[in-house]
């Protein structure tokens, strides 16, 4: 049985229809990635699934007692709120020290328990968010552009962690990402969203679909070229690739500014 089932979901937001007639179901254990341009309703889709937004039409049904682990796009912690990593993991449900430490290990954030949340670097912060999401023993892990603000090696490592976690827990993963090349290689199913579902299917299928080309063909030549490139060569050289003409990301040191 599906974990989540969306039937004809439409969401209006301040007079604009952000999503219309979205049909989608997520099966146990699969990795589903949502791609789409800015303002295409990706976050709206995820927020409808966790129950933060009410659909204006259609229906969102979750499997009874579904446990969701949610990693938000951005989490601003007010500097007036003192919060250690350990305390954060016990929100809202208290967990034992042993479980907290396990979750941190699993998310690749082992030694951070005693640190203040506000002192973490961007990458550490995202890993702690992931650790917290794992503590609910989720059947469905939802990540909303979880690698925003991380550099490329950082986000590649983060997605590697997600794949490891999925292998260990067997949970389904639903994520939004801009990093098409990394994400599409790791997904079972890709959904291309632009207010509605333009196309969906296996990554290879979506990448060659005309709807997808229309949305991403010109703006992200670099990423698309890279994606193909990775599929043509299966050996491991993810960080020594050539950038396409429009690809302006760099391989700098880890940025520290995501949490501030």
């Amino acid at each position, binding site marked *: 049985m599906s974990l989540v089932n969306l039937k004809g979901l439409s969401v209006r937001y301040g007079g604009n229809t952000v999503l219309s007639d979205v049909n989608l179901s997520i099966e146990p254990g699969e990795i589903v990635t949502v791609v789409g341009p800015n303002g295409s309703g990706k976050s709206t889709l995820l*927020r409808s699934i*966790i*129950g*933060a937004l009410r659909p204006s039409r259609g229906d969102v049904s979750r499997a009874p007692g579904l446990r*969701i*682990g*949610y990693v*938000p796009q951005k*989490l*601003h*912690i*007010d500097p*007036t*709120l*003192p*919060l*250690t990593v350990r*305390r*954060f993991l*016990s*929100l*809202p*449900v*208290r967990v034992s020290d042993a479980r907290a430490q396990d979750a941190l290990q699993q998310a690749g954030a082992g030694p951070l328990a005693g640190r*203040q949340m506000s002192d973490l670097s961007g990458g550490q912060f995202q890993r702690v968010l992931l650790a917290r999401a794992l503590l*609910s023993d989720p059947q469905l892990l*939802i990540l909303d552009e979880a690698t925003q603000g991380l550099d490329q090696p950082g986000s590649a490592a983060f997605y590697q962690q997600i794949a490891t976690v999925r292998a260990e827990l067997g949970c389904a993963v639903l994520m939004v990402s801009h990093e098409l090349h990394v994400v599409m290689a790791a997904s079972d199913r890709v959904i291309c969203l632009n207010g509605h579902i333009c196309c969906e299917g296996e990554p290879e299928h979506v990448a060659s679909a005309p709807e997808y080309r229309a949305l991403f063909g010109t703006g992200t030549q670099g990423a698309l070229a890279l994606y193909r490139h990775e599929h043509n060569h299966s050996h491991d050289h993810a960080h020594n690739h050539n950038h396409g003409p429009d690809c302006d990301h760099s391989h700098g040191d880890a940025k520290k500014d995501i949490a501030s």
Partner: protein
Amino acid sequence: MMELFDSFLVRAALAGVGVALAAAPLGCFVVWRRMAYFGDATAHASILGVALALAFDTSVFAGVLVTSLVMATTVSTLSNRGYAMDTLLGVLAHSSLAFGLVAVSFLQGIRIDLMAYLFGDILAVGRMDLAVIWGGAALVLLLLWARWSALLTATLNPDLAYAAGIDPKREQMVLTIALALVVAVAIKVVGVLLIAALLLIPAATARPFANTPERMALIAALIGALSALGGLQLAFTFDTPTGPTIVCLAAVLFAASSLGDLLRRNALRG
């Protein structure tokens, strides 16, 4: 034992401590959620409650509680409707204060009491007031204690709350009710104009000493109680108005705490 409550100073001390113990932990949420003006607006609206209670000859506590609740709910509802929060609160806080003051002027023969409601009159706390204050304070603490984890999660991020099955709007409502209760019990102690100070200053003072939210709430409560007792003592010694003296002492403690924190940080930096 019962004679103890006959002393107006003992009653005043107990009233001050009771209000401080409830206001400080709630004040932490006010600080974390950046609702400082929200507390102000709710408090200012309560003068209208005083006027209405006097006009209809009902208890001031009930009048204040109702208007505070109405005010807080109005602000919560309007907050996502186009105006920036601080603009909206500025408009509502000051206009409700103005309306309250005008309404009071219509009532004959109670103009003398106005100062007591604006700045509090802790020395006039009676046994009944004391029961109301401690009852209200206990209720607020109970509410915070029962919903602590949910409140904290909703404060951190509404979406995290939703994903965990917590409705952040309900938690906001809990805080709104707690705030109205604190305003209603604190009006006798520090008055309408200084209630927000009792919420904010102890919480802000506690921040440098805390590494978890719980510790911050606890330290804030202690600092609040200390300010109440010390302020009462100072007001008695120097014959100054009690409510403002309590707030002055809290402010001095805040300055000391901030300065200490600054020096410590500089020392750490070498």
